[in-house]
């Protein structure tokens, strides 16, 4: 039930946040409309009740600055600890993958050259689920290695490809 006014205007009027012109229009309407007057009274009472109970609740659970800081510090410490743990694991995994990629490049270089080895690693990553060398992880390693083996079979021969495959096994 909003009659000539929008919900927003009603809310603003009850909260006392309307401009002078709107307030005059609302009050002029309330004088002549009983249902709106009753609606206004109900809303105003409910708003007042909410304000009073909110203030009471805030008083019960009021935090001093020191408590607030201590609480926040605890929360941030926990967040940092979780992030550091997952970051360290990720960093370690990334370093392991990088070492394995370097080892594969070192295996291929004497056979087909350093540039070919790097190109082969990149091409293998592109056709594997990793899509790029930077995204090669332990989860998609086997697919990546299988792609690299196929490329190595052409560039280094089948014995070379077997060497690459076995060198890349975890």
């Amino acid at each position, binding site marked *: 039930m909003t009659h000539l006014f929008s919900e927003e205007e009603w809310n603003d009027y009850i909260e006392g946040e309307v401009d002078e012109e709107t307030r005059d229009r609302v009050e002029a309407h309330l004088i002549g409309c009983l249902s709106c007057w009753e609606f206004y009274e109900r809303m105003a009472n409910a708003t007042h009740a909410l304000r009073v109970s909110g203030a009471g609740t805030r008083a019960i659970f009021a935090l001093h600055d020191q408590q607030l800081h201590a609480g926040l510090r605890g929360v941030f410490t926990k967040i940092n600890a979780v992030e550091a743990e997952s970051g360290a694991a990720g960093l370690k995994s990334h370093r392991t993958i990088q070492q394995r990629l370097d080892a594969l490049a070192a295996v291929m270089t*004497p056979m087909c050259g350093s*540039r070919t080895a790097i190109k082969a690693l990149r091409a293998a990553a592109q056709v594997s689920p990793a899509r790029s060398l930077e995204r090669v992880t332990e989860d998609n390693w086997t697919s990546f290695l299988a792609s690299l083996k196929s*490329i190595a079979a052409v*560039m280094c*021969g089948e014995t070379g490809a077997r*060497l690459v495959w*076995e060198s890349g096994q975890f």
Partner: protein
Amino acid sequence: MIAARITPKIVWFGLALNLCAWLAVHLPWRAGLTPRVWMAESAIKTAFLCAAYGLALALNMEIAAEYRQTRWLRVAWLALAANAGVSIVRIIVESSLLNLIWPGHTRAPLWGLLQHLTIVPANAFLLFGMLAMWWAYHQVGLGFTIEKRDYAAIAGILGLIVALVVFREGLSEARSPYALSRWLQLSGLALLSLSAAASLVLHRMAMQMSGGKLAVALSFLTFYTLLRGVLVLIQAGQRVSLMEGQSPGVPYSLFVGLCWQAVPWVAALAAAYRAEMTVHAARELEQQRAAKAVLASA
């Protein structure tokens, strides 16, 4: 595994032995110390060149067996093996030793015909091998590119073959009574030129690899093809420039003689370097498996 025994060092040694043996027989005659020993010179050339192509044939067959799954490369190395095999027939056919059975064989027009009957299929195999190899490496999609200067060099090679066809009086079979012989020589030259052009592309790939045994093998394949082409050109040019009855100078004859004898060894070196890659991989694999076995038992 033949490749484990026929290393590039062995092939280099074979080349050196071949050239030294030939010079040891040839130079005393040039110095006027001994009469010319045709038979010994011819026997050295025939034996060593057949040995070189024989090594190339055996190694190429072994390399082809390495590519059971990669069809184009298997075909490429089999074609190079066929090139070496037909070249052995060529060495025997053009050997002066046959004069012992058929006197005057090397001076007869039939000699040229027989020679080119072997050269044409050998060059066709070479061209096919080069193209199959290029296609196989191109299909991997590692981004090997041909540069502008390669196109220019290829255009230069094709220009030279056109010039040779125009000035074909310089060719050895230009005055052959057999039309087939003349036609075969031109076909052989066209095939050799196309092989040289294809080999330049392989050489560019080798340059873009930044080292490795494969790059060395591809460079030797390029050298094998280009050396043959350049020698044919030099000889044709020399024939055109010489007056009737005039014979070429000693340094020129020595240089061309040595270069032609080096040609089959270059083919063998290309195969030996490629085969060495397999030997290297097999050795590394063996060491890796042994290390893993030790770790597993520890």
